[in-house]
């Protein structure tokens, strides 16, 4: 390969997402799922891989997988089967993971502008704790295994390589997360590992259809780490290519502390998983009844909701997405919107920009926003009211009354402005000399006098009038 400093490279990114399902029990046994219980208290002979045990498919996990498949517009397989994926590791009690291989429950689909390659059911591994400084098994003094997580149902979603920059990858993952959360099939908590994302990353010559050699990035357990990890890897690959080198196919571990990538295993070290059909299970063949039940369980999904907010309520795309991708905010928004006289855009701004809004009763929030629109309370004062509502609840009008936060009448405000102009002669001179920003001193004085009850815009307007600007 020749060096070519002018060459333009295009990133090609595909994601593999593991979603822990929030079913009542594990994928193949009756153990309850674990949420930080004492180690090895959520186990049985089956998830411990004892001799002679057999797996039985969790029907609720199949139901959730069907819901996910439908939400991602996947083709649902008439008949899908499980395979054994074999490898030795202490977190893998049977030394094979029961997973779906060439006949997954969900085939090709799409979410927004990213195509889904497939989505399949499998079981999670146990958790290893390595004693010693490195935190890795090979230099550990000893390691312990907690099998509580072993056998937790997972859906693995694999996208086509349709993403072309780290930000877009993060953005799409947020949409997927919102969608899964809305479905109610998972806790989708990246820090706690109920949503885990690996990325396949490569560079190709811009305009070329041929894909470059990809690397697989693991351990990016937040949106920020995902974006940073991909960014770092793209830089690394680009430097190699610009230097005339070749990217090696390997699996990389992202260290969020240092922001660096280290090799987990090369292509030569890749496992031969010796997949073969799991003889202990029968095929999953969803009946019409199962399909109907899954379809009926589908709520309005975030992408559709954002579209509706945009088209029906005239919200800007960003605001619509913010509301739709966080279904708790979307729900709050829609409930508050049902009150009389609320302006959808103003309400949307309050819900998306004020963090306290999330803790306020929808009816009270609606009332407060109406008061702001009618200028019976200033925006600044309304923020104070919002804080009280979030902390203590109550009626916004009563709080305004009690705390004397109501907007001043025009005469009263006029007097205060006159006084502020008189007391800030320096500022007046500067304004007249063309330094417009000096108006801030007068506004500040008014706000101080009114303890923030006055509307900033209104005050500015009044000052300009009085100074004949």
């Amino acid at each position, binding site marked *: 390969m020749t060096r070519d400093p002018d060459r333009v490279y295009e990133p090609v990114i595909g994601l593999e997402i593991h979603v822990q399902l929030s079913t009542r029990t594990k994928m193949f046994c009756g153990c309850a799922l674990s949420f930080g219980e004492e180690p090895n208290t959520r186990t049985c*002979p089956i998830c*411990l*891989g*004892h*001799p*002679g*045990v*057999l*797996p*039985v*498919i969790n029907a609720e996990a199949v139901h959730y997988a069907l819901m996910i498949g439908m939400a991602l517009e996947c083709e649902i397989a008439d008949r899908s089967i499980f395979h*054994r994926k*074999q490898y*030795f590791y*202490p977190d893998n*009690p*049977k*030394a*094979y993971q029961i997973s779906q291989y060439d006949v997954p429950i969900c085939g090709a689909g799409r979410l927004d502008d990213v195509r889904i390659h497939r989505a399949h059911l499998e079981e999670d591994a146990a958790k290893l704790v390595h004693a010693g400084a490195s935190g890795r*098994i*090979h230099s550990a003094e*000893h*390691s312990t*295994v907690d099998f509580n997580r072993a056998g937790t149902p997972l859906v693995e979603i694999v996208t086509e390589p349709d993403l072309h920059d780290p930000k877009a990858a993060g953005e799409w993952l947020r949409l997927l997360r919102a969608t899964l959360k809305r479905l109610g099939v998972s806790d989708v908590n990246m820090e706690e590992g109920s949503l885990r994302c690996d990325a396949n990353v490569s560079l190709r010559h811009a305009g070329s259809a041929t894909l470059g050699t990809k690397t697989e990035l693991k351990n990016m357990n937040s949106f920020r780490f995902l974006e940073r990890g991909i960014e770092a890897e793209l830089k690394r690959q680009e430097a190699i290519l610009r230097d005339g080198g070749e990217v090696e196919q390997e699996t990389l571990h992202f260290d969020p502390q240092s922001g660096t990538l280290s090799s987990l295993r090369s292509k030569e070290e890749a496992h*031969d998983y*010796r*997949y*073969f059909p799991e*003889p*202990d*299970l*029968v095929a999953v063949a969803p009946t019409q009844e199962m399909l109907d039940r899954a379809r009926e369980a589908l709520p309005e999904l975030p992408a559709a909701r954002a579209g509706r907010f945009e088209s029906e309520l005239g919200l800007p795309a960003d605001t619509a997405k913010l509301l739709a991708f966080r279904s708790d905010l979307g729900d709050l928004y829609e409930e508050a919107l049902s009150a009389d006289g609320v302006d959808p855009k103003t309400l949307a701004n309050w819900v998306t920009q004020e963090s306290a809004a999330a803790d306020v009763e929808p009816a009270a929030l609606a009332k407060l926003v109406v008061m702001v629109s009618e200028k019976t309370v200033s925006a600044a004062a309304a923020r104070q009211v919002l804080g009280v509502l979030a902390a203590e609840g109550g009626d916004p009008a009563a709080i305004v009354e009690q705390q004397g936060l109501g907007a001043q009448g025009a005469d009263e405000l006029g007097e205060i402005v006159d006084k502020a102009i008189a007391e800030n002669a320096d500022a007046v001179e500067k304004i007249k000399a063309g330094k417009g920003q000096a108006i801030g001193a007068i506004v500040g004085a008014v706000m101080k006098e009114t303890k923030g009850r006055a509307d900033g815009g209104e005050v500015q307007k009044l000052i300009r009038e009085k100074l004949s600007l």
Partner: protein
Amino acid sequence: MTELAQLTAAQAAEKIRAREVSADELWTLYRERAAADDLNAYMWVADEPDAGDGPLAGVPLAVKDLFCVEGVPSYAGSRILEGYRPPYTATSVRKLREAGAPVLGKTNMDEFAMGSSNENSGFGPVANPWDRERVPGGSSGGSAAAVAAGSAPWAIGTDTGGSIRQPAALCGIVGLKPTYGAVSRYGMIAFASSLDQCGPLTRDVTDAALLFRHMVGKDPCDSTSLEFPEEIALPSAESLDGVRFGVPPELTGEGIEDGVKAVFDETLKKIEGLGGKLEEVALPHSPHGIAAYYVIAPAEASANLSRYDGVRFGIREGNGDLLSMYEETRAAGFGGEVKRRIMLGTYALSSGYYEAYYGRAQRVRTKIADDFREAFAKVDLIVTPTSPTVAFKLGERTDDPWAMYLADACTVPMPLAGIPAISIPGGLADDLPVGIQLAGPAFSENRIFDAAYALEQAIAFEEGPWRDA
């Protein structure tokens, strides 16, 4: 005492129910005999009976070592499981206990059911009670020897390629390999999951039907189990009028020892004498049964046996390092034949070889099943010798795995097709028992029992160590 020991299990149960003898008396008799066994047939003998009240009336049951019984050593004949006492009980054992059959003891077997002579046990070979210089067959050699010797009234074993029928034949008793799925596999330490099936080893056909009646049924813990479509009746047929018997040249000609052939030909005459019709049927793919079997069974076994890694149960060896623990534990715990099959199976499933071995073997399996389907369109049952030879000498074939594998030539096609087959004593050759095999379509056990019963009366085989013990 001697008279009591010469009753069949069904007769003993009848006498207990009629209060002519007590269950305690029977337990004490067999408990003493099992404890005094000098064939090495037992791995463990119970102290006290553990069954509930039920139609089997307390008649003790010998159980192959690979059935998990809670708190009881269950090693599957392997040193790697030394010290293992399962935390749960196999469904079939639980059902038989509930039906009134207490566990008398655990019987010796080829390690992980891999063998045709019981010489592959990690705990020493079992002697054939007909001639202690000879093997009892395998892998359920301990169960067959115990029943034949009269130290147990009846037993259960498992059959993957012939492991119930061949030792039953070599020990002059009755053994049934049921339809795949008829009896739960839950709690049976797995060898080859798509082939393993447990069944009775008994003194006569009636006992086999009685025991089988209480074993069948769909088990929620075994997804591959099925509800048996009819009640299991105790056989009573006296003639074979109108019953069509298929004689496949592929399993009755080449390789069958002269003495065995003579008993088989004699049996065919008896079938005709009872009104049965003989017809030649072709099973053209069955000669490939051994080859297909020795790919499929080791492939599944290689995965099933990966869980013996030293982490959770059984023995643990090595210097504390992960790899050394895996390697040393498995090197020390597994015997030679088990290692051979793990290597065969691992190879057959390896990337690049899967299609050539596992894929092709599965296609042969399908063809073998098709052969049977076509044959059963013409005949009701198929009759063959069970084993090409009578019991061979201890050590005679241990250096020649292929010669050992050929012992299963007549019995391997049936489990590959998932169909049931019984072996009953047909007579003697060189003073050693010869088994006759009757096979039928899936779930035709009642038909098989009836025909076997009629034939049993006509053969009137009245030999066997248990009759004199």
